[in-house]
């Protein structure tokens, strides 16, 4: 902390709070949890490895003929700690192999929604403990990257179903991962179509408008919304382009540089996720999605308790609750496995 130029007698010095917070943050590090939802072969693993510039996860796609096609969506979280300029992040990437792999994909989203809600529930449980940790371990999903099929005429029925449910529990960022098969015109038309359909189905994706936004925020958010869904190309391969080494893909008719803004939205996506809206993602998860979950859970518990009390008063057996409620966290704060609905 250098001597401030305002070091006069009238200078109070509370503006150093940001630096104090930074130092605390440096010491503590933070959690960041991302879930990837999309069919196998859409480029999920490659993209996340590209964004974080390290090989975080392996693709879980079926390669061998003898391998059996997964029958349900599996949840496979991988946690690693990355460090950059003294800042540590405990990064958890949750892959969803088996999603939409079957002929009949009814309910393939259920394990995903359940996992997200379970993380909220786990956090709630930790929060309600009488003796809780100073810093509660945060496994809540801060961002959901939803992968769309390039070339489709718009949202597919499965996309509509799943997006409606996902946007209720987490921040959803729609992405076209293998966009190197779309020309610029096709991309523009596709993005417009997707935005129309999202509006039609009233699916609200991140970033959300907020009253706290400054003019700067609004402009930035507007430009982000223009780009949605992000048409990106991912690559873990480093190739040479004009004497430089870049991450890209080499085709017989040209070389794609994923960092080239005219080639793909990769840079925009990365900046958006990590450089400008990272803390937003975490905060909105806590303030909006988690609070919603918490409110509905506690309300259900109250209802259940009221029903039980009423039943006890009338002397009958406790009536069957209208919705399957979670087993209530009692005053002791011990909560068993809460039942969550997809």
């Amino acid at each position, binding site marked *: 902390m250098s001597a401030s130029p305002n070091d006069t007698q009238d200078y109070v010095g509370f503006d150093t709070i940001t630096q104090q917070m930074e130092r605390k943050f440096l010491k503590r590090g933070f959690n960041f949890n991302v879930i990837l939802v999309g*069919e*196998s*072969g*859409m480029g999920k693993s490659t993209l996340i490895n590209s964004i974080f510039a390290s090989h975080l996860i392996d*693709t879980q*796609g*079926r*390669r*061998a*003929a*003898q*391998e059996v*096609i997964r029958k349900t969506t599996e949840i496979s979280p991988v946690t690693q700690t990355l460090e950059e300029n003294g800042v540590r992040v405990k990064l958890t990437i949750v892959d969803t192999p088996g999603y939409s*792999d*079957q*002929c*009949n*994909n*009814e309910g393939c989203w259920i394990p995903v929604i359940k996992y997200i809600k379970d993380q909220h529930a786990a956090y709630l449980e930790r929060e309600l403990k009488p003796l809780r940790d100073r810093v509660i371990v945060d496994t809540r999903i801060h961002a959901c990257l939803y992968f769309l*099929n*390039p*070339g*489709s*005429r*718009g*949202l*597919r*029925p*499965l996309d*509509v*179903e799943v997006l409606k449910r996902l946007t209720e529990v987490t921040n959803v960022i729609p992405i076209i991962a*293998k966009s*190197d*098969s779309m*020309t*610029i015109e*096709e991309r523009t*038309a*596709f993005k*417009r*179509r997707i935005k*129309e*359909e999202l509006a*039609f*189905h009233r699916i609200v994706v991140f970033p959300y408008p907020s009253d706290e936004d400054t003019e700067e925020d609004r402009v930035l958010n507007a430009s982000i919304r223009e780009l949605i869904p992000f048409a990106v190309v991912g690559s873990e391969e480093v190739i040479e382009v004009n004497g430089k080494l870049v991450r890209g*893909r*080499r*085709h*017989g*008719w*040209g*070389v*794609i*540089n994923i960092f*080239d803004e*005219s*080639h793909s939205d990769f840079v925009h996506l990365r900046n958006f996720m990590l450089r400008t809206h990272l803390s937003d993602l975490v905060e909105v998860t806590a303030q909006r999605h988690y609070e919603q979950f918490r409110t509905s859970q506690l309300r259900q518990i109250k209802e259940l308790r009221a029903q039980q009390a009423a039943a006890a008063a009338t002397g009958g057996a406790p009536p069957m609750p209208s919705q399957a409620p979670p087993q209530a966290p009692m005053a002791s704060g011990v909560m068993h496995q809460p039942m969550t609905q997809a």
Partner: protein
Amino acid sequence: MRGNTSMQTTGASGATKKKMNGYVGFSNYPNQEHRRSIKRGFNFTLMVAGESGLGKSTLINTLFESKVYPAKDENSHAAVGTPSAPGGTKTVEITSVSAEIVENNVKLRLSVVDTPGFGDSINNEQAWQPILENIESRFDAYLAQENRVNRSKIVDNRVNALLYFIKPTGHALRAIDIEFMKNLHNKVNLIPVIARADTLTAREVEQFKARVLADINFHGIQIFRPVSDQFDDPDTIADNKAIAGKIPFAVVGSERFVERADGTRVRGRQYPWGVIEVENEAHNDFVSLRQMLLRTHMEELRDATDVSLYETYRTQKLLALGHVQDNTVFREFNPRQQAEEEERVHGAKMQKLEAEMAAVFKQKVQEKEGKLRQSEEELHTRHKDMKAVLERQRAELEDKKRRLGISDTPHAMPVHTLAAQDVAQQQAQSKDKKKRGFF
């Protein structure tokens, strides 16, 4: 046209092979066939299947260099929100577009059958069913026409080839691909193509093709492969091998033209990083697909449809309907043999009839005998009974006699004689009855 045919050492059909001494000219037959076919024109029905957005219509329009399908612009489709019904089930439709294309006086009646909606729902378990039904209904229609009395005009709508579009995931086949191909591979010539191949690098294409073929072999799926036979010249054999080596074809289609570096205009797609040319064999396998489908193996596809796929279907269907294979129709007709056979059959029939009648007669006789024996026994028992009754009565009378009077008093006598007379009368009566009752 060769002048002399040489004698081959092996005779396949058992007919003697003759050597000719001059040019006869029947080797001109293929030309005559050729001219006739040109006059008649050709039918070709091509079906395409695959999820929406894989470029099926674009590829068809590229293959046939003409707007078979109207351009599916992203701007020109239906209103937002219409496709998905509640629950997310879209039905699979079958739409057909026909065109008559002429090239060098050869007329091709081309039909392209599209299958919109396939694989687009949440539950695609039976998505292949409407497509299979359509193919089979075309077989049925042909079968019905074949069985008509007047068969001079048969319209052949059978599907000659099915292009199945595979999503370029880079991994392996998806569940819906495997299900589809397993259910249709023995009803139609399956030609799998990797769609939108411009998203894969050359190495990725190679690896993906290997995995797709591994899946196909693992599940025993029969896809159409161009085979050479012994009569082809070495060039053709080499070409066929080259084409077969590229299966499944990784293709890119385009209805737009782009300008190359040297100024020429070719079909292609313009990207910020370069231009992919549809007809450049280094860029994708479109040329091989077109070669195989249109230029070299169209006849083989049609032939395989008729000779192998259709025949198998017909056999199964007729057997299922209860028809039985009757091989006697294949024998030669010989009148004498037939007369002898008829006589034999007739004689056998007569004998059988005789035997039957004898048996029936015997049976009847036995029955009657049995009945008679039975009635005889009955009569015997009745006779015995009656005798017993009479004895009893006599005994009673003797008793009465004794009680009434010991000796033979004149009064008693008449009683006795009366009783005896009674008894005698009764006996006579019963004897009469017996005699009468016998018959």
